[in-house]
């Protein structure tokens, strides 16, 4: 394989992996704090794609032609609206089941996922929707036909993902809110006794997760240009896999898992066969879980006595 093909596959994998990572954050944070898998998270990401398109359409119809401003405004609005979805979902589907057995919120999550999917299908139609290609700029390295190319959007995906990741790690490790999150994660009852409003903290985690999914939604919509009410399903499963691979509950693990999954898919696809790339990715997951049952960066669960 030529170097430029290999480099191109690395670029492809890195982009895909960053997106998986961004969405995986939502799964991993929610699992870390309440110990449940939020199966509706993929659909929250789907919602953000719709909000992105609607925002862009509204901004352009008002005659705003400054692209950077339009993108920033769209990003902010999408994060806000999607975060509101995250908060509402937690309020409706999970908080009433706080004391219930573990399976109950899981089923509630699957129900929520179906509600979001079918709600969007009914209100927006089943057809594929899209936004025109807005940022066609491309960086090409190499000569003639042997070049490696990175589109500006792909650069944005990688940079924005890493930046969000760093900001989030800082938030969790260094701020008072982060300390409350970690306390709630370690022992919810004790945290509550010490005066932390744990319900508020759990809501905040859902909001942060949804906002991260919104960033992914905006970037994906800019990169691929099309979406439908069903995109949350496949991407959600992949992001969930990334979260488990990296160690569910671990923030850097989510990003690492996403990158490994994206890269392994792209490289296997490029060097061996596209038909079996998912088989390869999931075999990798099985192997990792055999040797490290808590994922790459996950901490073993301490039995609480």
């Amino acid at each position, binding site marked *: *394989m*030529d170097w430029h*093909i290999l480099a*191109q*596959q690395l670029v*492809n*994998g890195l*982009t*895909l992996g960053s997106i998986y990572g961004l969405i995986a954050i939502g799964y991993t944070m929610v699992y870390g704090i309440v110990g449940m898998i939020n199966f509706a998270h993929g659909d929250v990401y789907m919602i953000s794609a719709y909000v992105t398109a609607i925002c862009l359409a509204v901004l352009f119809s008002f005659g705003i032609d400054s692209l950077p401003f339009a993108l920033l405004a769209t990003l902010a609005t999408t994060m806000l609206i999607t975060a509101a979805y995250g908060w509402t979902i937690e309020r409706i589907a999970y908080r009433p089941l706080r004391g219930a*057995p573990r399976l109950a919120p899981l089923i509630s999550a699957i129900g929520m996922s179906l509600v979001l*999917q*079918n709600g969007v*299908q009914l209100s927006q*139609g*089943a*057809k*594929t*929707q*899209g*936004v*025109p*290609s807005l940022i066609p700029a*491309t960086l090409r390295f190499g000569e003639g036909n042997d*070049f490696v*190319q990175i*589109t500006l959007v792909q650069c944005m995906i990688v940079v924005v993902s890493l930046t969000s990741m760093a900001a989030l790690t800082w938030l969790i490790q260094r701020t008072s809110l982060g300390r409350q999150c970690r306390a709630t994660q370690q022992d919810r009852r004790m945290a509550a006794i010490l005066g932390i409003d744990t319900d508020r903290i759990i809501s905040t985690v859902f909001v942060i997760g949804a906002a991260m999914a919104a960033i992914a939604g905006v970037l*994906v919509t800019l990169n*691929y*240009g*099309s*979406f*439908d*009410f*069903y*995109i949350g*399903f*496949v*991407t959600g499963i992949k992001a969930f896999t990334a979260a488990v691979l990296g160690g569910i509950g671990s923030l850097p693990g989510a990003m690492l898992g996403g990158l490994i999954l994206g890269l392994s*898919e*792209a*490289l296997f*696809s*490029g060097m061996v*066969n*596209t*038909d079996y*790339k*998912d088989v390869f990715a999931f075999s990798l997951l099985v192997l990792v879980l055999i040797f490290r049952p808590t994922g790459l960066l996950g901490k073993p669960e301490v039995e609480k006595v």
Partner: protein
Amino acid sequence: MDHPSFPRCLLAVALAGGLSLSGLAGAADTIKIGVAGPMTGGYAAFGEQFWRGASQAAEDINAAGGINGKQIELVKGDDACEPKQATAVANRLLDQDKVAAVVGHFCSSSTIPASEVYADAGVLVITPGSTNPKVTERGLVTVFRMCGRDDQQGPLAADFIVKELKAKKIAVVHDKDTYGQGIADAMRDRLKELKADNRVVLYEGLTRGEKDFNALVTKIKASGADTVYFGGLYNEAGPLLRQLREQGLKVNFLSGDGSLDPAIVTAAGGPQFVEGAYMTSVREARNIPASQAVVKKMKDAGFDPSGFTLYAYASLQAIADSMKGAKTSDGAKLAKWLKSHTVPTVLGPKSWDGKGDLKDTSFSLFVWEPDGTYKEMRK
């Protein structure tokens, strides 16, 4: 754990009772016909086309007096393009809803198992869109189609690739589904007959529902292919085309009737990505003189009858006409009637051979224009 409270139980009982009562009502003076396809899930746009087309047909037939004095009542069946769900839906339509005939299904992978269920029960089924040859090749007498076969349209693409485009290296991509892989294989078989199968440099399947095919595109680039053939639906064809163009590949792109839908322009993110792509399909249904009145009526009601909408309309027309002609709803007798008569439909007059295939399907080639529309290529 709590027990459900008494009023809630009561509510559940009342709901169940209401459902079964409404199921019984109106059974005598209507004829129930199932419309089955992907009503939810990733391919729900096709299910919507089926439902809209069949609903319009039912409305029009009912307004003209119904079938033998009975009004048509449509029953929706959702298979989500899942083979397992398709057989479950088929059984439900037969056992619970007691349908007299079925318009459906869409994905060949669903139609094939579901049609076995209908055939066992002796119920007539017409698929508006399943083009895989196997649908009518199993000797099931009550199974018909309102569309062509992939072993007709695949070879047309192969001839064009070899004779007109004079391709040197061909990449074949499919979506691993019965339809997609079937049509890609039919194309490849014809390449073999033309002694051109050594020009196939890549043959791979992508995953339905994904949007990122960049790794595959880079691989196609590495293979040096000058022509890409894709067997699958527009949902995947759109992003694939866009990513091919974005990575700077100026290859010829061909696909089949599952991709020839205006929605591919949206799925690709703009007409500039779709421009110049070739696709095989049956004649554009919205341009046939016989369909103009229906097209106008549906457009006025706010739905563009693209894709398989009019095929679903025509399928219901054929079912209604056979029931009027044979004065029964027995599948075997209806099938016999359809195989010996010509039915005037919204797609023009249609007649079927002994297998249940249309006698007069001819596929043609279409090419996408810079403005995001497609036109039939004249030779």
